[in-house]
């Protein structure tokens, strides 16, 4: 089904539905310990619609889906709005793949890897000629990341990221099925947190190594030049140029959702294309599926497991909770030392096992593991002991 309703009508309707929904949740939720969680769940679902807006809103005189081409939403948001400088979607720190369809926002990790190449328009970037260099585009992505992180911190992870919602759903399934809940020791959790920076550094270095021919003119790894008969190697080259995307657990979910709704050619993800990395289909590999399976199993045992090692979360955390960014970050979790009784509920409630909220005496207790989900705030039994603030103003505070 294709909607032909103009965007000027559809968009206000979405905004109205969002506002009414949020108001109803705030008004009708009786259970104080779930009020913010319910609101967050609703916002996460809304975010899915916005992120995959291309799947929901009509084509607006554009082809419904464009194989190997610039997507309808890419034209509307990327190309038409941003010109030919950054036609690959707006970088927002959530795991949302770069695909031919439904691309409202784009995962900055993909952009950082892809833009490493000065000549990124070959062999990828079908129909796209950039007016900016790779370095400029990386500047735009990092600048956008810093702006987003300074204003909202890691609340993107807690409130908007589709993979965060997926893990929250897994946690709810665990609760329904009464599976045992596990926690890591603080030391292990700390090491997991540190590993995020190793992961992103590793994949950025791999990205440069795999794309060495295009960057330095020398092939460091044999077989990474797109020169196969009929251009068949273009697929594998374009995939290993973005090595993190070969392991990212969100990638199969994105393509499955899009194919499931009929906005992606199902043959793209169902046919065997090329071998060395076990690529099945044009959009994800067997490594993606394996990582996804492992993350699902671990997320059923440990809440928000992926968020503890997510390299994108690491970047957002880096730009919001470490000096000098921490000094000017606008969204914070704050604790009143005089009202806290060290009951430990906040520590047990935290889905990523952040410890600063319990260990620190008071003041700003935001840390890079904190996804600002406000679960600790809604469960804290003391008035105003914990609160999330924006620009120094309290947005939500704990209540008896």
């Amino acid at each position, binding site marked *: 089904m294709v909607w032909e309703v103009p965007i000027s009508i559809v968009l206000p309707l979405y905004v109205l539905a969002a506002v009414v929904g949020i108001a109803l949740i705030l008004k009708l939720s009786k259970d104080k310990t779930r009020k913010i969680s319910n609101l967050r769940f609703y916002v996460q679902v809304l975010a899915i619609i916005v992120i995959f807006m291309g799947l929901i809103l009509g084509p*607006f*005189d*554009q*082809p419904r889906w*464009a*194989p*190997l*081409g610039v997507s*309808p939403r890419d*034209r*509307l948001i990327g*190309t*038409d709005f*941003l*010109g*030919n*400088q*950054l036609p690959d979607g707006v970088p927002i720190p959530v795991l949302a793949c770069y695909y031919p369809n439904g691309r409202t926002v784009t995962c900055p990790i993909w952009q950082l890897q892809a833009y490493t190449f000065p*000549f990124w*328009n*070959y*062999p990828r*970037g*079908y*129909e796209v*000629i*950039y*007016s*900016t*260099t790779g370095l*400029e585009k990386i*500047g*735009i992505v990092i*600048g*956008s990341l*810093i*702006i987003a992180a*300074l*204003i909202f911190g890691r609340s993107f992870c807690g409130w908007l990221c589709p993979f965060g919602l997926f893990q929250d759903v897994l946690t709810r399934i665990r609760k329904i099925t009464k599976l045992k809940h596990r926690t890591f020791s603080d030391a292990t959790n700390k090491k997991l947190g540190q590993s995020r920076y190793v992961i992103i550094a590793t994949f950025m270095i791999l990205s440069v190594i795999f794309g060495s021919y295009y960057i330095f003119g020398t092939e460091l790894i044999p077989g990474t030049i797109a020169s196969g*008969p*009929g*251009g*068949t190697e*273009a*697929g594998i080259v374009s995939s290993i140029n973005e090595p993190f995307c070969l392991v990212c657990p969100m990638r199969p979910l994105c393509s499955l959702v899009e194919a499931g709704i009929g906005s992606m*050619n199902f*043959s*793209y993800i169902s046919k065997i*294309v090329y071998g060395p990395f076990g690529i099945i289909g*044009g959009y994800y590999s067997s490594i993606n599926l394996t990582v996804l399976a492992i993350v699902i199993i671990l997320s059923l045992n440990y809440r928000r497991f992926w968020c503890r090692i997510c390299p994108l979360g690491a970047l957002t955390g880096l730009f919001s909770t470490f000096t000098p960014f921490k*000094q*000017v*970050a*606008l969204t914070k979790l704050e604790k009143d030392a005089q009202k806290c009784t060290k009951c430990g509920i906040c520590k047990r409630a935290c889905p990523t096992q952040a410890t600063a909220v319990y260990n620190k005496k008071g003041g700003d207790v935001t840390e890079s593991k904190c996804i600002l989900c406000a679960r600790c705030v809604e469960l804290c039994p003391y008035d105003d002991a914990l609160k999330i603030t*924006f*620009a*120094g*103003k309290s*947005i939500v505070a704990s209540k008896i």
Partner: protein
Amino acid sequence: MYLLVSALMSYNKTCLLLLIVLLLSISLFSVKPVAAQRATQFSTGDIFEIPAVNGSIKFSVNGTYVSADLVDDTWLFNNLTLSGSRFSGVLMFSAKNCNVTIHMFRSNSLRYTVEGMGEQVINLGLNSSIQSHVSEWSVINQDSVFFAPEKQWKLLPDNTIVVRELLGTLTVVRYNYGYPVNEDPFYLQHSILILTGITLVITVTIATIIKLKNRHQRRLP
């Protein structure tokens, strides 16, 4: 956005001034002078026949052109713009023993559907004095199959592509190793980077002002 605005409003006039500067910057970059042209509109129902070679061309989207002439069994579209695209350029297209529907036209690519086992001769209006290399071009179908040059298609010295006996939806694309010549002024060519930089500076400035203000208020008895 509401939170940001309310936060700004609740602080001082400097913040408000910075917001106005930001909005002015955005509007400045979004304004681009456009030369007036007398364009002819066409719709999806218009068919451009090539009777001598039993071919026809139509478009799957509406659009405009300044002129469309049939010269030597080839339709020459000047300043062709398809609806939903900002690109405007010259397209030369001939369809022999087949009917073609064009879906997308850009400076370096064209997507169309072919009905009938025939031949298509395509020129995207590239500068014919600078000969491109065959490795820069690809002809791809909707199943991501890259067709081999000199078999299903070939490149002529004047940058014309000749596609033979292929059916379905095809994309003819030239991957450009260099950057296109952009005659826009510097600030328009790099507007997104400049805008990102300005927004970053404004965000940090406002955040610093807010932090200093909060610190000052906390010190007050």
